[in-house]
């Protein structure tokens, strides 16, 4: 039976880590990299931390796991509260494994509060002193004293992160206090995790640190000079903690370090070619040394862990076991496991229903009324995120229905109107796309969304050159600008204008190297041009980003076959066919 330790570093990215590895500032991660595999981890949209981490933990898209925002409605106050386990619509991997009889523990992971059976859990509420953050309760006497209070930091420690902290007027600048909280949270989680790793027998443990993501938010790139080393300092601290976790896990354990995204990177106009994706590093028995992973994504983590324990994917999981980590074929069926979680959610929903019923009878909760605006804004944000999750999966009708509802209720929000127009466009409902985009351009001609709206209209009318010009002049519009570049490329491809198609796809890739469809389109154009080597490389780029694209495997196979590499081509064709069979039904 293997032993697996999953460590989550919120917002950590290779682009920030590489210089630290190079300068020797992260020796423990360097040890993992040397002894194991590393690679990028394709992220999902939207870039909302609890949403992404719950996808990691459940192996499902957010429309299924239902953690759609950082907050959820609070049926008691009528306002909002940090997202809890009550929102969960899917079961997290440690609970799946625990239901399967394995000894599991989760520490600090998002959406685990309040702590519940079946495994051992120190919830993400522990570091913030919330009650019911430890399960089983008999562990409270051991774990509760390990919560580190931000006030326990002395200036000597904080000075390691902010060398010139003496210059800070703390009456006016509260960021030093925030840093103390960020570091205290990480330290509390580490103290609880190390204690559980040492004192309990376990098969699977998951530990989550939010420090990098949070610090990147409070001290973004280009922040005041005095704070410029804070994020690097946080990475060093986590590396220090990683060293201890590795030691406690022992050489017999497989350790997986993952991040959901690179914090601070824009979703679609990233400042580096790496984009906003996350990272993956894994080491342990059966894992090659100093190798790279290939095409892994957030949804692959849970199936990989199940695979390491010999199980197949749970229902609802769409990812794959990452072959560089889980070398043996998986397939043991999960017995007596409920991959869908419902109990708390039902209770949560019923409480909300009760509140609504009371309102209908004229009962007015003054506290709830005070929170109503915030709750309404959160509900809108959740629906918007859900619509984008559906759009990203190509579930256009469902996405359009939600976007229409959102636009009707929020006509002033130009971003939502553009998304609706884009969803119409993707559905080939061009008249409706035009009906959205034209007034948008009139209403908000200077909006960064207007140029993307114009591009939609240009493409609809076949004016691809104009569309490209508008896209080039536009600003970042989540997902849409680069996607339209790719759409123009596809249009040129259909028209047989191969040179123009290559140019458009390259433009899309230069804007956002993370769009697998653009790499696939480029591969197809190269293939049509008879540039087989280039076609194979571009297809592999697409596969690296999204392994589950049967078309990319097919193009790879055709390119390899044309190069006379029949055997390799056969493997690619087989993958294409297998993936086509596996495509989820919407």
């Amino acid at each position: 039976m293997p032993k697996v330790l999953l460590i989550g570093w919120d917002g950590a990215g290779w682009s920030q880590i590489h210089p630290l590895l190079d300068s020797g500032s992260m020796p423990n991660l360097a040890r993992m990299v040397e002894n194991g595999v590393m690679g990028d981890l394709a992220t999902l949209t939207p870039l909302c931390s609890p949403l992404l981490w719950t996808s990691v933990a459940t192996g499902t898209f957010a429309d299924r796991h239902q953690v759609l925002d950082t907050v959820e409605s609070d049926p008691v106050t009528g306002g909002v509260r940090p997202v809890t386990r009550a929102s969960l619509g899917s079961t997290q991997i440690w609970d799946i494994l625990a239901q399967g009889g394995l000894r599991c523990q989760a520490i600090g992971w998002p959406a685990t509060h309040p702590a519940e059976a079946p495994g051992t859990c120190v919830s993400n509420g522990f570091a913030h002193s919330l009650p019911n953050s430890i399960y089983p309760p008999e562990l409270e006497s051991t774990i509760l004293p390990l919560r580190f209070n931000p006030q326990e930091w002395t200036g000597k420690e904080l000075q390691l992160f902010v060398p010139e902290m003496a210059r800070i007027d703390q009456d006016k600048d509260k960021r030093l206090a925030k840093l103390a909280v960020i570091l205290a949270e990480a330290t509390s989680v580490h103290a609880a995790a190390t204690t559980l790793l040492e004192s309990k027998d376990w098969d699977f443990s998951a530990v989550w640190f939010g420090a990098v993501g949070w610090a990147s938010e409070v001290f973004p790139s280009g922040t005041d000079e005095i704070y410029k080393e804070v994020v690097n300092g946080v990475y060093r601290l986590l590396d220090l903690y990683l060293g201890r976790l590795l030691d406690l896990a022992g050489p017999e354990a497989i350790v997986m370090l993952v991040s959901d995204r690179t914090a601070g990177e824009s979703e679609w106009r990233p400042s580096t070619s790496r984009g906003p994706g996350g990272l993956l590093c894994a080491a342990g028995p059966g894992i090659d040394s100093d190798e790279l992973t290939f095409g892994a994504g957030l949804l692959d983590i849970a199936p990989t862990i199940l695979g390491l324990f010999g199980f197949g994917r749970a229902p609802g999981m769409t990812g794959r076991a990452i072959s560089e980590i889980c070398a043996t074929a998986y397939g043991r069926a999960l017995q007596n496991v409920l991959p869908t979680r419902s109990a708390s959610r039902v209770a949560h929903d019923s409480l909300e229903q009760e509140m609504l019923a009371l309102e209908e009878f004229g009962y007015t909760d003054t506290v709830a009324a005070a929170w109503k605006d915030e709750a309404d804004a959160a509900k809108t944000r959740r629906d918007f995120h859900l619509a984008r999750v559906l759009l990203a999966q190509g579930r256009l009708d469902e996405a359009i229905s939600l976007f229409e509802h959102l636009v009707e209720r929020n006509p002033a929000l130009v971003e939502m109107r553009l998304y609706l127009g884009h969803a119409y466009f993707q559905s080939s409902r061009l008249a409706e796309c035009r009906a959205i985009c034209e007034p948008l351009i009139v209403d908000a001609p200077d909006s960064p969304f207007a140029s993307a709206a114009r591009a939609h209209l240009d493409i609809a009318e076949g004016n691809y050159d104009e569309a490209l010009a508008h896209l080039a002049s536009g600003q970042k519009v989540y997902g849409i600008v680069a996607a339209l570049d790719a759409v123009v490329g596809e249009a040129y491809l259909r028209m047989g204008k191969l040179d123009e198609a290559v140019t458009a796809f390259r433009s899309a890739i230069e804007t956002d190297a993370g769009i697998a469809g653009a790499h696939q389109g480029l591969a197809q154009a190269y293939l049509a041009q008879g540039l087989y080597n280039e076609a194979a490389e571009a297809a592999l780029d697409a596969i690296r980003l999204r392994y589950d694209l049967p078309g990319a495997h097919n193009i790879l196979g055709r390119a390899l076959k044309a190069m006379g590499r029949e055997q390799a081509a056969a493997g690619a064709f087989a993958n294409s066919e297998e993936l086509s069979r596996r495509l989820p039904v919407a």
Partner: protein
Amino acid sequence: MTTGRLKIGNTQMNITQKQSRRGQLDKKLAAYTLAGAAALIFPGAANANIVYVNVGQTVNNPGTYDFNLSGSSSDDITISADTLGPYPEISASTANLAEVVMDTANSDVAALAFGALIDPTSTASFGSGGKMASSFPLDPGDWSATGGSAYLGFYFEGAGGPQAGWADIATTANSTTSSFTVLSYAYETTANTAITAGEGSPVPEPSALALLALGGAGLIALRRRRAANA
């Protein structure tokens, strides 16, 4: 493909795939090299260009402490505890082309905070010295009158030009006497190179972090140690 596991599955392809992946790895390693000038993280990392001296010497009124860093026959900087009229004070004076960082607002010697930049190539705030702390109520100086410490920024004329340095000095000045303690000082060995106040001093061993890295047991040990020292 009956195993349910996807793999580009033959020898030839594996070689192709590994070559492609190895290429990516090479790119990463190249990126490492390019990023080689990345800044170190925590302050006080070992710096071979800074000479650090731990002093810990207290001077009472009347008395002086002399810095002779340039190796000339006379001292470069002198810190004095004396009395001007009825007012005990502490002051700094310079010679041999040495200068100290001044407070341009009152023409007294500046009391610098940790991390303040001392750049010998910028002459704007350097001067020949003056009052540091005084019991004279109308011009008490920038330095502590009650034993607090601050950094004196200076440069002295080395063989290759001005070399920057700092001295950590605690000062006291009241109506009856004055005194000071030179805690430590440091200077750049490379001419025309800036230093920051406190730079080069041994980093306080991050013992608290080292303990916390151990986890729960370390946290408890840290609390016990702090309680014992309280």
